[in-house]
């Protein structure tokens, strides 16, 4: 009859060396089959179109060997460092960690507020900080969909793109009316007459349009779960990108859109002129002002995302998202409308993606479909997963680690991805549930006790 509901899975060190060896042999076999045609045989079209091929069994053997050894190494590492949590730390150490953990978020916030002060003269670092904050915001937005509602969305970049293009198209240019001026590049034509207020008016509009697309794309996937949901959302992300790429009249196709209005300090432009911000407050103009302003802008947007998410989690809607991730059938039996609950998660997640997109457009002043490839979705998803699904602090840490780490390895050139991938694999072995793997309850009677990750479901994904 009914088995007791899930107990924390205990690590089982039962299997010995034979098991490791077996696993390695299987991995090597898979690699052999996979790479036999890809690497083992090299084909090329000859000068007159005939097929030339030669074998590269040496390379094939070395790759299969590497997979074999790598599999053993990874399995041993898994045993050795293993998922933490099985190790009981002494109470004093745990208490120390708890204090550190509680101080970490405020410390990060204060540091973030001071970044433009500390790095005022280092444009590169300021730029990087803006980039990191953009990903923090995207991570927090996607976290609503993946971390809280448990819906594996591989096409999040679609909403980022919708936000960016909404802003770019509405703010600027005769693009919606290409027949007015039929030369490319289209000259900026402020048809909404928003002037310096373009960004501030169109930011919410872009977010709402992205949310609308969240609902539109959400409808067809309501009944899909897990892998199917992931694949369809991935396809949606690609469809949006391809539409942007091919709808030349509207979007400029691969050439993108340039001359997107830059942000203003609530109507005051950040320009060297008479009525610029610098002249207004009586300091000499510096292009760094814009960077500083952009940084605080994205910081504010990200913090709004964070605040809204934290609030929503404690509202019935947020609890319904998490309950849906835990058990959809039980939700239905309790009278929760799964359709609206899912759509609201998609819409709100998409809305924050749209805000981030509008910010991206105003920051760059130029957007093209290249910026919205699947790689972006994968990166944001990796940030959410690495952070620990559902954890706001974890996502922020993961964004810093991923984007910062990516820059750190820049010197390694073509090996960057390799090192990066390796580090990711090690991290996921060490902390399979992400950097911050426990869940904080949304309401409590006596005391707020963290819930261990092994109990928390990951949803259908």
């Amino acid at each position, binding site marked *: *009859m*009914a*088995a*007791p*509901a*899930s*107990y924390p899975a205990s690590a089982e060190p039962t299997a010995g060396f034979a098991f490791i060896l077996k696993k390695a042999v299987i991995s090597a076999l898979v690699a052999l089959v996979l790479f036999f045609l890809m690497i083992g045989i090299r084909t090329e079209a000859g000068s007159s179109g005939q097929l030339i091929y030669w074998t590269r069994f040496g390379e094939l053997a070395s790759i299969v060997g590497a997979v074999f050894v790598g599999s053993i190494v990874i399995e041993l590492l898994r045993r050795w460092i293993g998922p933490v949590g099985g190790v009981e730390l002494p109470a004093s150490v745990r208490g120390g960690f708890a204090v550190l953990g509680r101080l970490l978020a405020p410390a990060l916030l204060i540091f973030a507020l001071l970044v433009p002060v500390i790095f005022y003269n280092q444009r590169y670092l300021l730029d990087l900080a803006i980039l990191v904050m953009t990903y923090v915001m995207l991570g927090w937005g996607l976290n609503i969909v993946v971390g809280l509602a448990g819906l594996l969305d591989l096409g999040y970049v679609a909403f980022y793109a919708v936000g960016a293009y909404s802003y770019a198209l509405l703010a600027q240019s005769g693009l919606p009316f290409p027949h007015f001026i039929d030369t490319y590049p289209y000259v900026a034509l402020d048809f909404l007459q928003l002037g310096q207020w373009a960004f501030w008016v169109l930011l919410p509009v872009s977010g709402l349009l992205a949310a609308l697309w969240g609902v539109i794309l959400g409808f067809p996937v309501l009944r899909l779960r897990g892998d199917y949901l992931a694949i369809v959302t991935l396809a949606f992300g690609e469809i949006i990108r391809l539409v942007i790429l091919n709808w030349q009249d509207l979007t400029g196709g691969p050439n993108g859109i340039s001359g997107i209005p830059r942000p203003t300090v609530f109507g005051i432009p950040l320009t060297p002129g008479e009525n610029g911000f610098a002249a207004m407050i009586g300091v000499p103009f510096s292009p760094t002002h814009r960077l500083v302003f952009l940084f605080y802008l994205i910081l504010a947007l990200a913090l709004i995302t964070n605040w*809204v998410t934290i*609030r*929503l989690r404690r*509202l*019935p*809607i947020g*609890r*319904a998202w*998490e*309950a849906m991730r*835990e*058990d959809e*059938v*039980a*939700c*239905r*039996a*309790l*009278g*929760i*409308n*799964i359709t609206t609950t899912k759509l609201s998660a998609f819409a709100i997640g998409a809305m924050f993606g749209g805000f981030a997109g509008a910010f991206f457009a105003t920051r760059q002043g130029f957007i093209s479909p290249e910026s919205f490839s699947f790689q972006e979705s994968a990166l944001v998803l990796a940030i959410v997963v690495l952070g620990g699904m559902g954890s706001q602090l974890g996502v922020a840490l993961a964004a810093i680690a991923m984007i910062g780490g990516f820059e750190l390895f820049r010197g390694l050139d073509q090996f960057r991805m390799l090192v990066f991938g390796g580090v990711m694999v090690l991290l996921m072995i060490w902390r399979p549930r992400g950097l911050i793997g426990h*869940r904080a*309850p*949304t*309401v*409590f*009677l*006596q*005391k*707020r*006790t963290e*819930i*261990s990750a092994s*109990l*928390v*479901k990951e949803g259908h994904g």
Partner: protein
Amino acid sequence: MTTPAPILAIDGLTMRFGGILAINELSFTAQRRQITALIGPNGAGKTTVFNCITGFYRPSGGTMTLVHDDGATFRLDRLHDFRICKYAKVARTFQNIRLFPGMTALENLMVAQHNTLMRASGFSLLGLFGAPSFRAAERQAIDLAREWLQRIGLLDRADDAAGNLPYGDQRRLEIARAMCAQPALLCLDEPAAGLNANESAALSDLLLSIRDDIGTSILLIEHDMSVVMEISDHIVVLDHGVKIADGAPRAVRDNPKVVAAYLGADEEDAAAVMEGGA
């Protein structure tokens, strides 16, 4: 008031899965403020009946009518999915416990009050800015949850993850969660499964108190005959999707058809039927 209509009247309910006829022309009624037990050997179709009542399956035929105390009438065969709990106020538990294991006991009970709280939170807009009316509603919800935690003796474990609770506690928590949805009809699918004798006795008391103190009607699927015979007001026996007996516990226990059905299925169950209630 005139003679109260039965809370639930099922008429000619039929459920077909492809070629399998899981329920065949089943008709019975469940009286208001009574415990109606639905029993039968394994595979008789009991859970399927529940799934039809609670909107998880769309019946192939027949009608199911639910009447609230205030006379509001719902045709459950035309209502679906979450609407059955939300509007017709039918809550259920599952044969395999379906709590939200990663949420605390208290949170489980809060999720059950979703619709009330959702309205109070102005569909999240009022709640987002902490409107006083929402805060009051939330305090009320917490109070109801606390009351139920007290009833099932889990008050001191309110902040523990549901998945961490012992099996018997999980069973009771699932009942409390269903009750927090403030149902008119509570459907329990084998609540005593896996419980020891003490826990079963406590469960019987809990169900009787739900019937007598709260006034909720209960539809109960149960294999544990001591529980069934002790607390049910009325028993419906199902075998191979067909009703074979319907009546007071004593009459059903002595019904030769019932004994035969259980004998055909399982000697131990048959013995249990005979001994139960004695």
